[in-house]
Structure formats: structure tokens, C-alpha cells
């Protein structure tokens, strides 16, 4: 990276407070593919000059996979530990790189003592576009490129965020095509509910194959995602269908960063 990503500990030591905390999430921290998305979100934050910070090694799993797998104990242990850190830093606003972290912190932390304004990174991008701070210039042109957007369940159906990611794509002047099952009727990538961490039950096919077939049917050049787990599932699907050359799966943050030459 061409710049240093500031941590909360450093900010605190310097007696400063960020405008927004960037909650990276486990996938964004450890998964190689998702790390790229994380760095692109930082590039966007840096580019627009927003005062932000990350928790770095002080961040821990939100507890989402434990909760969806039925282990409420582990979830609440994680949640309370995280809330303690967030409250100690007096965090007010959080942007997440993952819809699962977004949903958990936004909806399930308040009941345990952690109330923050929480947005997903596609919402931040939408806000920045609306405020005129972010455009689509100076970088790769997506004009007329065929893009289809896959709604992550925990962003879309779970929290009703359908427009923000589409807004981020609209400014590209690209050719947006919707899959048959989109928005409230969007089909899951197959990773939610802790499925990411286990083998699927026996059946006729894997969920991500069903989804990628639908995505490929729109003949896209890019499949846009907003979730690191969807990213893994969609990428695997594209690979299995041997379409890696024709179709790229990119996160909204990556597309935005590319369009702005970041």
C-alpha cells in the first residue's frame, strides 16, 4: 500500500478520533481474495480524505457464524468482548466490508450494549457519490460494460439495502443487467448460515452453481459482489464453469477503486 492504514490504538495515542471506524471482518483480514477488497476500501477512504481507522489486531470475529450455527454463547462472548473494545474507543460510526458483520453489529449488538451507526461499504460509496466526493473518473472505464450485481442476503433481504450497490454501478455508465432472481427475490450464493464452513448436504447441485448459471445467463463481463463470502462462492462457480477468461467477479469497492484509478 502506498499509504499507512491508521489503527485506533495509534489514533488514541495521538489524541485523535476518527470520523468512522472501518470494521474489516475475518474474511477481509485473512482471505487472500478478500484482502484485496479490504485494501480497496482503504484506498477509497484515503482518496476522499475521510478520517478513518481500523482496529487491526484488536478486531475479532463478530460472532456471526457462531450465532447462525446455533452457538449463542460463543456469539455473545465475542459480541461483548468486541463491544468493550468499541465502547472503550468511543466509536460512533462504523463501516463494514462484509454484510454479515454489518448485520450483526447493526442489529444484534445494540441489545448487548453496543449501539453505533453502522453502514456497509456500498452505502458509504453511495454517500460519497451523492456528496460529490467520489466520481468515476481517472481510471478504468466501465462505460457500456455488461455488469450484473448479486445481492448478498444479509445486505439485501436481511436489511433492505438494494439501491446503494446499484447506485455505485450506475455512475459507471455501465450496462447493468439484472438476474432473474434479484433484490428481494435474490438467490443466496450458498455461503450464509455458516454454510461457508461446512460441506453442503447431499443434493442435485451446489447452490453457488445454481447462482452462477443464472449470473452467466445474463452474459456479463463482470459480476459485482458486495460480500467476501459471496465472492468466494461466485469465483468458485466461475472457475468450475471455466469462464475465468470472459467473466470477472469484482467487489463494488474494487470496481469503484478501479474506475477512479486508485
Amino acid at each position, binding site marked *: *500500500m502506498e499509504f*499507512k*492504514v491508521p*489503527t485506533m490504538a495509534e489514533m488514541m495515542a495521538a489524541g485523535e478520533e476518527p470520523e468512522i471506524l472501518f470494521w474489516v471482518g*475475518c474474511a477481509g*483480514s*485473512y482471505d487472500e481474495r478478500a*484482502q484485496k477488497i479490504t*485494501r480497496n476500501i*482503504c484506498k477509497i477512504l484515503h482518496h476522499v480524505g475521510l478520517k478513518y481507522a*481500523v482496529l*487491526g*489486531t484488536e478486531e*475479532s*470475529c463478530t*460472532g456471526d*457464524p*457462531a450465532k*447462525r*450455527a*446455533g*452457538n*449463542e*454463547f*460463543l456469539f*455473545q*462472548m*465475542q459480541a*461483548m468482548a468486541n463491544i468493550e473494545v468499541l465502547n472503550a474507543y468511543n466509536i460512533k460510526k462504523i463501516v463494514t466490508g462484509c454484510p454479515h458483520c454489518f*448485520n450483526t453489529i*447493526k*442489529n444484534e449488538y445494540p441489545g*448487548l450494549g453496543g449501539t453505533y451507526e453502522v453502514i456497509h461499504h456500498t452505502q458509504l460509496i453511495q454517500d460519497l457519490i451523492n456528496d460529490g466526493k467520489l466520481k468515476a473518473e481517472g481510471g478504468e472505464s466501465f462505460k457500456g460494460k455488461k455488469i450484473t450485481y448479486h445481492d448478498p*442476503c*444479509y445486505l439485501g*433481504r*436481511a*436489511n*433492505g439495502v438494494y439501491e446503494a450497490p446499484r447506485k455505485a454501478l450506475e455512475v459507471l455508465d455501465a450496462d447493468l443487467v439484472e438476474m432473474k432472481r434479484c433484490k*428481494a*427475490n*435474490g*438467490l*443466496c450464493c*450458498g*455461503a*450464509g*448460515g*455458516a454454510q461457508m*464452513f*461446512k*460441506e*453442503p*448436504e*447431499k*443434493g*442435485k447441485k*451446489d*447452490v453457488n452453481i*445454481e447462482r452462477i448459471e443464472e449470473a452467466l445467463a445474463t452474459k456479463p463481463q463482470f459480476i459485482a459482489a458486495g460480500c467476501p463470502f459471496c465472492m468466494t462462492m461466485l469465483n468458485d462457480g466461475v472457475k468450475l464453469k471455466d469462464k475465468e477468461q470472459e467473466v470477472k467477479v469484482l467487489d463494488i469497492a474494487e470496481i469503484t477503486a478501479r474506475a477512479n484509478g486508485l
Partner: protein
Amino acid sequence: MVSQIIFVILALAGTALFAYNARKVIRNIKLGRPVNRTDKPQERLMTMLKVAFGQTKMAVRPIPFFLHLVVYLGFVIINLEVLEIVIDGAFGTHRVFAGLGGFYNFLIGSFELLAAGVWLACAIFLIRRNIVKIKRFSGVEMKSWPKSDANYILITEILLMTAFLTMNAADAKLQALGATHYIAAGAFPVSGLLVGLLPNNLDSLIFIERFCWWFHIVGIFAFLNYLPYSKHFHIMLAFPNTYFSNLKPKGQFTNMDSVTNEVKAMLDPSFVPAETAPGKFGAKDVQDLNRINLLNAYTCTECGRCTSVCPANITGKLLSPRKIMMDTRDRLEEVGRNIDKHGLEHQDGKSLLDDYITREEIWACTSCNACVEACPVNIDPLEIIMDLRRFAVMEESVAPASINAMLGNVENNGAPWKYSPADRFNWSEGN
């Protein structure tokens, strides 16, 4: 006079029997854990008016939406006529509201058009189920009773509408022939077309008119008492079900207070929980579910919209959200029958988990909320699935090995994978 007495006895018996069975259903629902869903009454009322009364979630699929709308309107509006039937039956009058004049004619005419619409819609529904064989009406859970149940309902409605229209046709002809007692009232846009098919003999006409009248009203009382045994119960329960439905974001799962107490006590030994009601974590049987889950089960009309959008089901897994609801109702009914026979404390050694719903089903769920979104009456199969998982994981520590590994990683490394927390910020060094 005799027929009036028979009618009144029948009406009272029909209503009393329904009340008796409805109380049993309420008792069964109350076997579940209490849950507070009385907040935001205004928003709840609006949800009910929109979703149940206004049928907004049906509109996603235009063809069944339109057909169902006809049957729904027919049911609601034609039942105004039942009021007249009840008064006529009890007091021996005939078309007691005829005094309304032109408005009465308008009403009867509208009922007839609707009745014809209901007749047609039900016929199309039968064709969709049995001849076109629309996919969502099939599935492992749609064999035997559920399959017959749907057909019985449709056939009954067709018979009731046939009786209603034939009764009017006979009435119209009797009016035209100037039969005593049959005052000239009503407009008969549909049954007027049937008049030619009827005999000219007064006695036969009166017999047909009376037979259809009795068939129609007895049919309605019988149908009323069929509801508690049938998927058709949704015509009543859709209203409370939507009123008490979840108003929070779909992604927000409940935080278990019992767990919060324990976790707080663990983190801070000086913490004293407000109340100690340990109980079971999660659900093994229907009594462990909450009352809304159980109301959901009775409300489900087995339309299969949930299953048809379930990613697990679409890709051939065992999980079917509709089956989750049907199993919950079947098990709850079984528990209810046990209570009737052996008393409240009886244990039959069976449970919802394993005897009805298998582990394979609950672990196939992606928690994507597609089923919840698809339900036209706001049923939430996901909450039941999650409560069953909670029991499996927290009470039994039984989960797929890879899930246990993931949980171990979260506990030890603060991430679902086996990475060191010290490496968590390494991403910032890449490009």
C-alpha cells in the same frame, strides 16, 4: 317451524363445535414460550391491513394473485349473504333484506358474479394442482392428507357456489311463476342463465331451492368445522399471524437473554442476573418454540412459495421450509392429542427434532431469509430452524465436524479459520 328449530340447533351446534376446537388450538399454541409481540400496535395493524387484508405479498405472482383475489373477495363478500341466510333460517323469513330494494338487487347481482368467479377460479386451481401439476404443489411433504386436503377445499367451494347459484336460479323461476312466499327480489345475472335448465313444476322448484339453501348453509357450518383440521385455517389465522409478525430487520436474530445472563456472569463474577429462569437452550420439541412459531404453523396453507425459493431445496437438498411448518403443526397436534388423552405431563418419548425434522434438514439452511420473504402471510420458518440448531449445538454439542472446527477457531483465534490473531492486520502490508 320445525325447519326453523332444526336450523337454530344446527347453527348453534356448528358454532359451539368450532369454538370447542378453536379453544384447543389456542391451548396448543399456548404450550409454546410466551413472546412479546404487542409493541408498536399501529405498525402491526398496518402490516395486517397491508399483508393479510390487502394481500400485497401475493402480487409477486400475478396469476395466482388474481385467482386468489377472486376467491378471497368472494369469500368475504358472499359471506354478507350468510347473514341473511341465518336470519331467514331462524325466523322463517325469505330474503329478509329484500326491503333494501335496488341496493339489494345490486348486492345479490354482485354475489352472483363473484360466485361464478370463485367457481371458475377454484376450477382453475384444481387444474393447476392436478393436471398442470405446478411444481410447488408437489414435494415429499405434499403426499396423502395435504394433497387431498387442498382438493377437498376446492371441491367444497365449487359445490357451495354451485348450490348458491342453483338456489338463486330456482328462486328466480319461482318468483317469475308467482309462487307464494317467493317475493320478487334480487338480480340474477348468472343464475338467470341456468333457469332454463330447471323444471317448470312448482313443487320440484321449491324442493331444489330448499335443498340448495340447506346444502349451502350446512356446507358453510361443516366447512367452518373443517378449518381447524385443515390448511384452510389460514383464512382466519392470516390476520393475527400478520399482526404478530416480526417487524425487525429479517437479519436480526434474537439475542437469548438466558445466555446474556450467563455470559455476563462469566465475564464479571460480581454480576447478578435479574431473574434466573435457566430452562432449555434452543428447541427440541414444539413446547420449546415460541407461541408465534406455533401460530405460524397453524396459519400455513402449504402454498409452497417458501420451498420454491429455498436455495437448499432448489438444489435438491432435503430441507423444505414448508415441511418445517407442517412438521411443527403435526407434532403440536400430536402433543395436543396426548394431553387430551393422558394429561398435561404425559411424555411420549418423541420430539420435533429427529422424529419429524432431521438434522440433515436443519444444517442445509443458509439462513438467507428467502422463505420468510416469500410467505404471503409472514410466516418465519427460519426462526424454528435456528432454534433447533441452538438445541443441537448448545444442549447436545452435536453439529457437523466442520462446524465444530469453525466454532473452535472462533473461540480460540477470534476468526472462523485457523489463523493467528497476531496476523489479523497483515493485509495492510499487501498491495
